[in-house]
């Protein structure tokens, strides 16, 4: 591993100070399962993605940890571990979607170390991006190897130049729950709805979010869901433990007499960002869910543009969406 300096700030302000000093040569460190045991161990680097000279350890900042819930909703510190989220009774009662999504991440060992912030901000799993000898767009290179290469796990929606899929289960769930991110930077704090947090390759090919190198995700706020909101999570994977989604679906919607009032369907594993399937939501609006879900789920076909080896994911996205919506109702 390339050598680096380790900083252990006590406050967010101090941490931001180090990030400002090093620019894109510093990275915040939380659980480290992706950054240290992934990116740095495997020398995932390029012109647009230097390996860090400095790591800023966020686990030494007490403020970043913890779950608070009140009538407005829940606030979760970015450094809260996935295990803490899974074990929170308050979250489970009100946001079972998040609990299930967090529980579907990797393995118990990873969840004990992995944090919410780290899970949201982990880098993609594309095997070309991860391979140190593939100098791809995402690392500042000039090629996407997935277009003519083995793209069985790549994007079926929204790929342009780069065809990664967003790897985060919790991000998919949080977008469905209409959550917001609190970001701290040199100019203070700002709230960004997850609707605007993730960016696709056309907007920024080197990053998957609006987070700037000198900024930190400090906490996540989830608003209390409207009464009668149904939630469900599904994740299809090729291995039951320690695997990313081929397709995942997060559904959160308000229902009256089996009729869709309002809500969100978000798909993971299909696009460079957690993908809000508005085409499906629109088809369901004001309709009896049970009778229209089949046709609504098929609307994913109108937006999907599969690659040479991944058309099967379109079928899976459709099936899984239908099943997840019905599971939420049940």
């Amino acid at each position, binding site marked *: 591993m390339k050598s680096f300096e380790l900083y252990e700030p006590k406050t967010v302000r101090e941490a931001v100070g180090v990030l400002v000093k090093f620019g894109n040569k510093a990275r915040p460190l939380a659980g480290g399962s992706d950054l240290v045991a992934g990116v740095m161990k495997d020398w995932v680097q390029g012109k647009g993605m230097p390996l860090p000279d400095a790591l800023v350890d966020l686990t030494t900042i007490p403020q970043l940890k913890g779950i608070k819930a009140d009538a407005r909703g829940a606030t979760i510190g970015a450094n809260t571990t996935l295990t803490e989220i899974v074990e929170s009774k308050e979250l489970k009662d009100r946001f079972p979607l998040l609990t299930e999504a967090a529980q579907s991440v990797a393995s118990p060992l990873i969840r004990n170390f992995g944090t919410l912030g780290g899970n949201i901000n982990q880098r993609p799993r594309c095997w070309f991006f991860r391979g140190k000898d*593939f100098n791809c767009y995402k690392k500042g290179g000039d090629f996407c190897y997935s277009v003519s290469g083995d793209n069985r796990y790549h994007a079926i929606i929204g790929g342009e130049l780069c065809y990664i899929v967003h790897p985060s289960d919790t991000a998919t769930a949080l977008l469905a729950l209409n959550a917001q991110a609190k970001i701290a930077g040199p100019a203070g704090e700002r709230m960004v709805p997850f609707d605007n947090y993730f960016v696709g390759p056309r907007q920024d090919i080197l990053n998957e979010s609006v987070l700037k190198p000198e900024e930190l995700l400090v906490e996540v706020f989830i608003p209390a869901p409207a009464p009668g909101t149904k939630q469900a999570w599904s994740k299809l994977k090729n291995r039951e433990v320690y695997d990313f989604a081929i397709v995942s679906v997060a559904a959160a919607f308000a229902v009256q007499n089996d009729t869709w009032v309002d809500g969100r369907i978000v798909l993971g594993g299909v696009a460079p960002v957690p993908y809000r399937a508005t085409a499906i939501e629109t088809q369901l609006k004001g309709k009896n869910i049970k009778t229209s879900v089949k046709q609504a789920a098929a609307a994913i076909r109108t937006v999907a543009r599969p690659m040479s080896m991944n058309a099967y994911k379109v079928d899976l996205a459709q099936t899984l969406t239908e099943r997840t919506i019905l599971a939420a109702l049940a």
Partner: protein
Amino acid sequence: MNEKVDALRVVQDPAYAASLTEAHWQSLALDPTWSELVGEFHEMVAPVMALYAQNLGVPVSQVLRPATAAADTTPGRPEQFQVLGKRVPRLHGLGVVTNLGQFTQNMRMPGMLHTRTLRSPHPHAKVKSVNIAKAQALPGVVAVLYRGNLPAEYRDVKLGSGPPDRYLFNEEVFEVGAPIAVVAAENEHIADEATHLIEVEYEVLPATLDMMEGTRASTVKQWENKENGTIIAVTPPLVRGNPDTARADTTVEAVLTKSTEQHMALEPTNSLMYWDQDRLIAYYTCQHAHGSRAGLSQALKIPANRVRVIQPGYMGSGYGYRSGVELTEIHTAILAKITGRPVKTIYTREEDFVARTHRPEFRNEMKLGVNRDGTIQSGQFRVYSNVGAQRAGSANGAWFIMQDLYKIPNLKLEATDVFTNSFKSGPYRCVSHPNGTFALEMMIEKAAYAIGMDPVEFRLKNLNEEGNPDNKKPFSNPGIRDCINAAANRIGWKQKWHAVRAKEVRPGVFHGIGLAAHACSHGAGTNPATGQVIVNLDGSVQCVSGCTEIGPGQRTQMAMITAEALGVPLTRVSITTYIDTDNTTDTGGTNGSRQTNTGGRGIYEAAMDAKRQILAIAAEKFVDDAKRRNQQLQVTADQLDVKNGEVFLKTEPSRKLRLQEVVSFAGLPILGRAIYKQDGKWERTAWASHAVELELDTATGVVHILKYVAAHDVGRAINPFALEQQIEGGVVMALGAVFNEELLIDRATGLPLNANMLDYRPPSIKDVPEEIDVVLIEHPKEYGVFGAHGIGEPPMAPPAPAIAAAIYNAVGAWMEQMPISREKLLAALRNVR
């Protein structure tokens, strides 16, 4: 003798074999590559053995005779044995599960250096220049070894067969992962960082990545090759009867493929080496300490007795790829010599995946002719194997089952080994047999459906229970019929087997059931089989064996064999976990599932030798004791036996002596020893049948295994507990290869895509079927220790065809390309809807 014998060429080139002198044959018998071929690729070596057995010091095969019942045909009756058949937990299990055992990876020495290797990112290239200046200047770097500064004495050292040659550092590299330079530094991270400071200039050359492309005449040759393209060897076909003209009512044809797999031993390959004056001491994660010693001794050009290899017995398994040494181990030894310090090398997971060997990719072009009455008429099977970037052979390894399992009167077997600039092939738990079993059993299944016959009945009708029709060696007490019947009964074949796609259990979810049979050469045992048994003055017993423990509990089993043979309680017997070449004799590698009948045979014969001595002394003592009491007694050794640590008169069991009294009477410890040569007359064969019941969700491609049955003829269950673990473990490992595991490369660059546990996806505990019903069938073998046949590898082969058969039964789609990945399954389902 001035040139090393090329073991592989001996089996592939009959003219070369004929040209060998007696001295060549003698050296071949000691060659680790040959030893591995004999153990793992029995079927490749068999024709050579048949011709040259005398030169190799092995008895010639005998004429085929009807399978005679072995000495003891009754199924295991536990009361017959004191120790055998008891469920004995691993003697060293605590050290394994707690990590308190001495794993090589955990070993540290003062002043120890760490290495990291810079490897080629190109599948085929010329290394034009290497600049190590920046790496050498990094604080903490102690030495950098590369082609430019390799000591002169090692410049001609190479591993394996050529061409193309594999030198310590090639100028022309043929694979991604070929070593370019090795850094030794104060810690692993410095060594790693330094490799990234080495500047290499490559001239990229055209690579052949596709196996079938390698077979074409138009493909660029990479060395002086008399075959097309990059073909390594075309084995002379095996022809039985008249396969070209034989007629059949129905002929079934298919092309069946398997993709590259890697073992993924939990502990990555690693070593700790240092020089004690002129001797190399190497702690090494290997499956054959003496084989690794031979490899190091030959590469370093020092006699075998100046290399000491220790394998601590606590090892994160091997599965076949750790019998000899790789280039990295020789680099490590040289760096230890140059720096004068202990050197530790731990492969990264990616290196273990890429730089070592794999189960190769296979392609089988199959044609099977059957008559409507259910008799097989003919078979024409052509096997291709992608042996990767080296001269190796594995295609005809698939022949064994094709020759032996069913009666096929007209048969033609062809095999072609193809080099590609890709993953090197090598032993991997049953090597080529799972391919042969998958290919043959798929054909059997297709043929049965084609003629409308129950596949189980079809198998039973065509079983060959006599012997190998080609080399005329008989089977010993084959249990294949019992295996198939047991698997069918336990899965409920008669009640549950149904017409294709006939049982939809929930909307879109189909039920299916499948069965497969298996025969392979593994578990046979080989030469030399050696061992020593020491009986101390206090009556305690020590086993000394050169058998390398890699996880399955070989050494526990050896203690059990010793206790049984000697007639002492197991608690009286000890055996070290580790193996040290300084004080043991070679007893073959722990590969080819051979240690039951190799290390186990050696220790059995040694125990019998000790027992003979004990009985002789005991006879003297009985006479002497009587004399002291002024009595007259005539006792000879053959009137005595040992049981439960006591020597007694067979005619008067109450007259007995404790073992301790016998040994003290002589005043000297007893040393039993054996160097045993196997009986070569048998077609030693492992038999098995697996059956599976599953449900398949056609919308998601999720396959849920409801029940799995694995029936194996183990000859004799020495330790049923260990046997069950071996079989369960094999099934789980094979299921990983059925559904997920395939090592992929990018077709444009030749770079690996998923050389890590996350993307390669071995199964997790949650992916394992809830029930694996293990059935042990005991048909004692005449050649086996207490009738036993080895078990390690056979469970690996039947899962693929059994699952594929069950999927066909469920939904009517033939899955002809392994693995049955979700995308392939969903694509196939689209065609049968």
